[in-house]
Each structure stands twice: as C-alpha cells, then as structure tokens.
C-alpha cells in the first residue's frame, strides 16, 4: 500500500512538473513553427518562459468590475488546467486513479471553459462581455464532444475508471470499432476549438474584439490565464493520445513516456499547421459546425450502445 501511495505521489509530481515545465516549451515550438511557415524568424523557443516571468513580475493592476472575482477566475483557470493534467496519463499511468473517475475529468474540462466565462463576466467591459457570450455559446456546443468520446469508452469497457477509459477504450468494441473511429474523426475535426486556436479562437479574437474576455487582465492574472492556455494544449493533446492513440504508452517507464510525449509533440505540430493555414470563423458558422459534429457523435453513441 505504501508503495502504491508513493508511486501515486511520484506520478502526480511527475505529471504536474512535466506539464508545467514542458507546456511553455511546446508553446514556443508552436510559435517558432508558425513563424517559419510565415517566412520569418520567429521568437526564440524559450520565449514563453520569459513572457510568463515578465508578466508575473508586473504590477497587479485592478481594472474591471469585480476585481476579487477576477483574481479568483485567473487562479481557478490555472488550477483546473493543472488538475486535468493530473488525471491524464503521460507515460506513468494515471496519477489520481482511485481519487476520481472519468466523470470528474469531464467536469474539470468544463470548468476550464467556465473560468473564461467567469473572467469575462467579472471584467464587465463591453468587449469582455461580447467575448464571454461567444465563449458560452461555443462551450455549449463543444464540450459535449469530448464527453461523448469518454462516454463511449466507458460503455465499451463497462467502467468509468480513468485507467481503463483512458487506454484506447473507444476501440474496445468487438469487431470493427465503428463508433470509435467516428469519434476519432469528430474529435480530430474539433480539436482546434478545444485548444483555442485558429480557426476557432473566436472568443479571443484579437482583431475583432480586442482579446475579448482577457481584455481587463494584465500582469500576474494574465500570466495565469496564459499558463492555463498552454497547459490546456498539453493536457488535451495527452488526453487525445490516451483516448485515441494509446499504442505503446504502457511500455516500461522511459520508453512509454517518451512515446507519449512524442505523440503529443506530433499533435501539437499538427495543430500549428492547421492554425497557420486557416482564417478565423465567425461564431455562427462555428456553432453550426459544432452542431453537425454533435449530431454525428450522437449517432456514434447510439452505435456504441448497440455494441458497435
């Protein structure tokens, strides 16, 4: 038992530490690759670390309607993102297995989105409210997609435990895993929205509504939102890998971890490529798109309950 607890704590530390250390690096990779696609040099790969340090060192200005709530929203956003990271296997198994199940994971993912809404509402300026309403609209259509994937995994394996669900469970149906493959397509097509990149970074559209919900944030609060965004990129990518591309991740410690992180890196590069070659969509177009995907995922759910 002691060994188990020790292993859990170590795994937890590994996950959180790895995510906190590597998330800015992956963000730097995104920026560098985007720059090369755009025929320019781009910032150094370590730039996001410097950005976060700089923001953390700035004066914590209170602007916006409800400053107390703004502080809370910033911290909650970061905490929720890190909590999601603790529940996702990144090469050392799931740290918090036994402490929660897949439903908690879905809840935490939704909480991340709610934090942005809270932040926008607390700031209270016109553009924040516009951005916040956009975020709410897209959350309603978007969050269910990942939830449906996890649900299908749970249906196939018959349990909500994290380490069973997050192990390629969507493919666990007998024969050809139709529902699994459908969900692979659906989540892949909406992945850009989960990690808030072009063409679906609508709520934070810089050129249209001046950064939307993040408008009244600066200094340490902005650092937390930004860090949360970077952590989300890593956590969601790892989640995608665990759900849909699990092969090889359960190997012995260094190999499995390296393979997982390699897949995460690959996914991040794909996200960058798509982000660099697309224009941003309008909120009504995006909602219609997610609506379609939601419909398809409902079909997959029905198929999964029929055992396919």
């Amino acid at each position, binding site marked *: 038992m002691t060994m188990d607890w020790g292993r859990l704590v170590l795994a937890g530390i590994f996950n959180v530490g790895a995510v906190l250390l590597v998330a800015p690096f992956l963000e730097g990779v995104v920026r560098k690759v985007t720059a*090369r*696609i*755009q*025929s*320019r*040099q781009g910032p150094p790969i370590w730039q996001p670390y410097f950005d976060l340090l700089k923001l953390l060192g700035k004066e914590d200005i209170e602007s916006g309607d409800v400053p107390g709530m703004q502080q809370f929203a910033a911290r909650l956003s970061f905490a929720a993102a890190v909590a999601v990271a603790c529940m996702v296997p990144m090469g050392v198994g799931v740290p918090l297995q036994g402490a929660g199940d897949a439903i908690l994971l879905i809840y935490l993912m939704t909480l991340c989105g709610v934090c942005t809404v809270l932040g926008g509402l607390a700031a209270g300026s016109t553009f924040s409210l516009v951005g916040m309403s956009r975020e709410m609209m897209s959350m309603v259509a978007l969050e269910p997609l990942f939830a449906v994937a996890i649900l299908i995994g749970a249906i196939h394996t018959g349990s909500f435990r994290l380490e069973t669900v997050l192990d390629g469970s969507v493919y666990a149906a007998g024969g050809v895993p139709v529902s699994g493959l459908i969900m692979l397509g659906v989540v892949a097509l909406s992945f850009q929205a989960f990690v808030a990149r072009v063409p679906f970074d609508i709520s934070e559209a810089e050129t249209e509504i001046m950064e939307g919900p993040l408008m009244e944030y600066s200094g340490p609060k902005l650092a937390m939102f930004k860090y949360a965004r970077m952590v989300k990129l890593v956590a969601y990518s790892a989640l995608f890998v665990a759900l849909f591309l699990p092969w090889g991740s359960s190997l012995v410690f260094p190999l499995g971890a390296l393979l997982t992180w390699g897949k995460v890196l690959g996914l991040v590069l794909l996200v960058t490529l798509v982000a660099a*070659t*697309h224009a941003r969509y309008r909120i009504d177009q995006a909602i219609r798109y997610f609506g379609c995907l939601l419909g398809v995922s409902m079909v997959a759910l029905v198929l999964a309950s029929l055992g396919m």
Partner: protein
Amino acid sequence: MSFVSKLKEAIVCLRAGRVTLPYPARPREVPPNFRGRPIFDAAKCIGCAGCANNCPAREILVYDPCQEIRILKYLGRRCTYCGRCAEVCPEKAITMSTEYENATDVIGDVGQRLELFMSTCQRCGRCFKEPSALEQLKLKGYRFDDPENERWVFRSRAYLEGEKPVDDIQIEMD
C-alpha cells in the same frame, strides 16, 4: 474544406523560406541615391540662402550679425529629407547622405551650423540662381532668423539698420 487551396498556399509559404534580415545585428545597405541626412559643406557654400528659401519644413535659418558674416543653421529636427535644399543649391554644397540611423535623444546632434565670410554684400541675393520662377528668393537683404533660440523669423532688411524691414509674412515661430 478547400484542402487543395490550403496546400497551394502552404507551397507558396515554404518555397519562400525565411526572408527576415538580421538587422540591426548586421548593417543594412541602402541604394546610393537614398535621401538620408543632408550634409552641408561650408567650403562650397556661398551663403545665398536658396536652401532656406526652399525648405518646406523651414528648418534652415539664416542670420546676419554683421555685413561680413552670415550664419546658416540647419536645425534638422523636422527635416523630412525631401532633398529640395540639395536640388536648388547652385554650388552643390549640400549632399543627401545615406545616413538613416539618425535617432538621438540630444536634439542638437542633428543640427549643423555654418559661419560664412561674405565677401560681397548680401543685399541683392543675385548669387542664388533659381531653377524656375517658382523658387524665387522670397526675401532679399540682411536676414534675421533667430538661430540662438532656433526660431524662424523670416524677416529681412535692405540695410543693417535704419531702413524698415521688408516682410513677406508676419510670422514668429518657435
């Protein structure tokens, strides 16, 4: 979703490679006829004040402390590097150099001051050959811009004292 066109766009990007220049780590050459900071050559200048007459930004001041000396001061603060001074100078004493890194926090750095010994009197202005009727000297005679306070006064007199000043426009500018 317009996959082919995205592919074409990606090809356009990748073919170009990286085009960012390493300035300011490495200097950037400009073409020889680049209009940078004008350089005034006191040896060639005859003190005709044609440049002051034709500077659209009024950044060249002329002041005559006595009959033999004319002070020409190029302030350079609002110089737009248009090159009109160099164009109308009858002695080609002004060259538009290729210097463009002129930013400084000491405003006096960009100024140039020429003290000229005038061996003929500066009353008639005939030493300025205007390129066309539109560049005629507005003021002839002794000039009294204010180089100490860097003010363009635009006033002249036919003689150093006694005579009434001849004004084109009543302006005192700072």
